[in-house]
Structures are given as C-alpha cells and as structure tokens.
C-alpha cells in the first residue's frame, strides 16, 4: 500500500525514543510497519549498536545449530558451552545413539529379570561394552572426518578424545547404575560393571593407536564376550565382576595406560598422542 502522508520528524524521533503515549505510539507503529519511506527515516535515529545487537541475536538463533538432547541436558548440569559444541559433533552423543544404548541396556536387563536372577550374563555383557562402543564411535580416523584439523588445533586431539570418552561414559552411567540396582542379584552389581568398563576403555584407546578404532572395538568386544561366555560354564553368575577378576581388569587398565604413554612419547606425529 502506498501513502502520501509520512510521520513528522519530531514525532518519529519521539517514537524511537519511546516518549509517545500508548495510543499515538501504536498509530505511528502501524504506519511505520507499512511505509518503507518512514522505516528508512527511522534507521538513522536508532542506535546502530542496538541494531547490531538485535541482528546478532536473530542470526544467533537462526545460524547456530541446535544441540542434541543429551548435550542440552549436560549443559543444564553445568557443561561448559564450548565443550557442548565439540560433543554435539560426536556421533555417540546424538540422541539416536543414546536412545539405542538405553534400549540395548534395557533389553539386557529384561533378559536378566526374565531369567529370575539366575543369569546375569546379558547385563554384564552389555553394560561395559556400551561405553566402549560409544567411545569407539566418537573417535579416530574413519569416524572423525575432521581428523586433520583436530590434529593441528590448539585444543589438542588427546584432550578431545578424553573429553568425549568421559562424556560417553557419563551419558550412560546413571541409567546403567539404576538398572543394576533394580536387577535381581546383589546390589553391588550396580557398580561392579564399572570395573571392566573402566578397564576396557584404555584398552580400546591403546589398541586404537595401533590398529584404528574399528578393529580395536571388535577385539575388545570379542574379548569381553569371551570372558562373560566363559563364566556360563558352571561358574557363579557374578564371576566376571568378582574381586579377583576386578584386580585383573585393574592391571589391564594400568598396562594399557603405560602402552598409551609409551606410544605418545615415540609418535612422530606431533600432538597425535592417541
């Protein structure tokens, strides 16, 4: 719609300064919204910093990508914003993956419940492997197309991998502990699966530095499955996570850390420790 009448300069200045009463203000606003010429005359009257701030805010909302749900929840719990951006790019922290992990754990727990507590193997098999697979999916050459940039960035590849590892573990930890508490069997089972999980993670990282994450995760998963299957041959249901075995896992973790440290000191790729 075109119009020949335009808002007077003084009136426009008063409108921009917020000095008009509600009725006159609303009338001017109605007109300015429809009249390009008056809108153009408004522009020099508005503080450009205010405009820039408003525009930045709009672009922020439109341009910055939405964080996946698990990362948003972690933000609520105090996760720093820059770390959230990094974690959002990791496949294993996407909503779909986390839901998948929860489903796998739930089915394993269901199998234990249906077996009436005689059989803990499904839960003991799945619980330590979920974080291991999650870390493998968030790590390494094939999984991380940005590898070349990660290696040369000041943030550091090792730090990124460790942050992701902790994040993956943290994302499944509460749910797994909760399931463990409700399962038939001893209550300490809720924490016992952490032993092998914590041992298998450095093992995965150490192996990955030789053969890459894909092969490494397969080796670790097969190894742990063998341990759990072995326990099915007449051993107590809790055998894979009993004290003696936990010591073995601790030794395995320590050994893997030593291997990682040795690899990092000899590696000729600058900064590419893992």
């Amino acid at each position, binding site marked *: 719609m075109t119009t020949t009448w335009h808002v007077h300069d003084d009136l426009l200045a008063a409108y921009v300064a917020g000095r008009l009463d509600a009725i006159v203000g609303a009338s001017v606003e109605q007109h300015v919204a429809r009249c390009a010429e008056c809108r153009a005359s408004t522009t020099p009257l508005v503080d450009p910093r205010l405009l820039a701030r408003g525009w*930045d805010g709009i*672009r*922020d909302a*439109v*341009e*910055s*990508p939405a964080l996946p749900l698990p990362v948003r929840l972690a933000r609520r719990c105090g996760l*720093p*914003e*820059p770390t959230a*951006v*990094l974690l959002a*790019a990791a496949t294993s922290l996407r909503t779909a993956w986390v839901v998948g992990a929860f489903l796998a754990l739930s089915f394993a727990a269901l199998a234990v419940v249906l077996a009436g507590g005689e059989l803990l193997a499904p839960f003991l098999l799945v619980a330590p492997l979920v974080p291991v697979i999650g870390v493998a999916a968030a790590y390494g050459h094939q999984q991380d*197309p*940005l*590898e*070349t*940039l*990660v*290696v*040369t*960035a*000041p*943030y*550091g590849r090792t730090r*990124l991998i460790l942050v992701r590892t902790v994040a993956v573990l943290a994302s499944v930890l509460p749910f797994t502990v909760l399931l463990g508490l409700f399962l038939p069997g001893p209550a300490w089972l809720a924490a016992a699966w952490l032993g092998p999980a914590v041992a298998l993670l450095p093992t995965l990282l150490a192996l990955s530095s030789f053969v890459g994450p894909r092969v490494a995760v397969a080796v670790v998963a097969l190894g742990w499955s063998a341990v759990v299957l072995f326990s099915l041959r007449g051993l107590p249901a809790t055998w894979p996570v009993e004290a003696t075995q936990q010591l073995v896992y601790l030794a395995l973790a320590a050994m893997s850390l030593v291997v990682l440290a040795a690899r990092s000191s000899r590696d*000729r*790729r*600058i*900064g590419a420790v893992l």
Partner: protein
Amino acid sequence: MNAVDLTAVTKTYGRTRALDAVDLSFDRGVTGLLGPNGAGKTTLLRIVATSIAADRGDVRLLGRDPHGSHAELTEIRRELGYLPQELGYPGDMTAFGFVEYVAVLKEWNDRGRRHREVRRVLELVGLGDLATKRVSKLSGGQRRRVALAQALLGDPRILVLDEPTTGLDPTQRADLRRTLSALGGRCAVLLSTHQTEDVAALCERVVVLAGGTVRFDGTVTDLVATAAGRVWLCDDEPGTDALVSWRTGTGRHHVVGGTPPPGAVPTDPTLEDAYLLMLGADAHAVRAPA
C-alpha cells in the same frame, strides 16, 4: 625473524624421501609452491602446519620449535591456519556449524565473539548467506570455501593452504585471489597448487619442488625469465627434441624447449612454460605432450 624457517628438513616415508634436506624461509606475503605430484609439496605443508614432524632438520615457526614443549606447540597452533588437501565433513553439519566446531578447537570460548568471528570468515569467503545450509548440500567449490573459512579464523600469522583453488570456477578463483592477496599483506601465506595461473596472478614468490628438493626459489618474473628464447610458435609439427608441444586453438604449435623448428617465431613464455622447462624430464609427470 621469519614466520617460517626450515633448515635441512628431511622427511621419509618408508623408502621414499619426500623431502631431502630442504632449506626454506617464508615471511609475510604469498608464496606459491609448484611441483608435480609426489614432489613433496603436501609433506612440506603438513610439516609447517604441525600435522607431522620432520625426521631431521630444524623447523622454526614464529621463532618457536614445534617439537619443543607442548606449550610451545600450542602457541604456534594459535597463530596457524591450515587448509588440508582433503577434508571430510560430518554429513549433517551446516557451514556455520562446521566453522564453529573448528573455532572451538581453536579456543574461541566466548560464544558471542566466536559467532561474530565465524560470521566474519564466512562473509570473507562469500558464504555469509549460506551459513545455515548443510555442507552436504553445498557444491564442491562452496565446500572448498567453507574449508578455507575455517583456516582464516582469528587472522592467523601463518596460513597454510594445500590446493585451495581445487573445484573453484574462474569467478570463485578470482574472488579467492582477491581475499588471499589482501591477507598476504598481514601474514605468511603458503599455498600449493597445480594451477600456474594462480601463482602468476597471486604470488610474489614461487618455489618449485621436485623429488623432495627445491629446484627454484625466486620471483615469478625471474622464473618466467628462465624460459626466455626457449618457447616458439610454428606452423609445422615440431621435432622430437621439444620438451612439450601442443596445437593451439589458432592451429599453430606452441613448442617448449628443444631446437627451434623451421619458421618458428619466438614467443613470450608463460609461467607454465618456465615451470615445465625447470622440471625438464620430470615435466612429463605433470603434462604429457599433446
């Protein structure tokens, strides 16, 4: 102090010597690296980008040693922009998301400042309006520009660009040249390319690498001058001793090197002619005779 100082830098992969005791220094300005595939260009750039370490020799970046302490390495990396030859993009990232991810890796921790910087570099490569588009939906040239944008974050003092013009159309290449020449005044830009026209249009200095050694290091004009009197135009097929020759669109033969064929008219050499002559027999690895 130069931005980049390389002394007797050697790097081998198995039995292949990718770089053989290379001495080079770079400071402000745009330097072009030319050389056939396997000449050691990418290895050299990766060493300067602190992606790999040299086997032997001394590397100084901004006066610091990248093989030194972790703190020293991090200091260097804060002043470094790197565009690798090949870069993957997580499928569902937007252009903005991709550059922002790298910005976080480069320690832009303040959200507001980071977003402004991401926007600035995207505008600089002409992708301001495509910020919200997924990288997987962008064309090859646009993707290359997204990759370039991340290298420009924070106005680095050393900018390492491995074949930045691959996949760009002539207009985009011209735009990129404008961006890079503006940057060259402020930082050391090191770029490798197969496009001699880019080097001729953009670089104050050109380094020709072949077989892991430096064959030429000087100005573009000096490199072109080495071919003076060795390039001809003639009507007949040239003799077999010409280094390369091809029939041009006008029907005449452009002959580089060898003895001048009968009736040949000397012509002004291009940078490409000089480059091919510089490589000599190695040139055939670059361009087979037409």
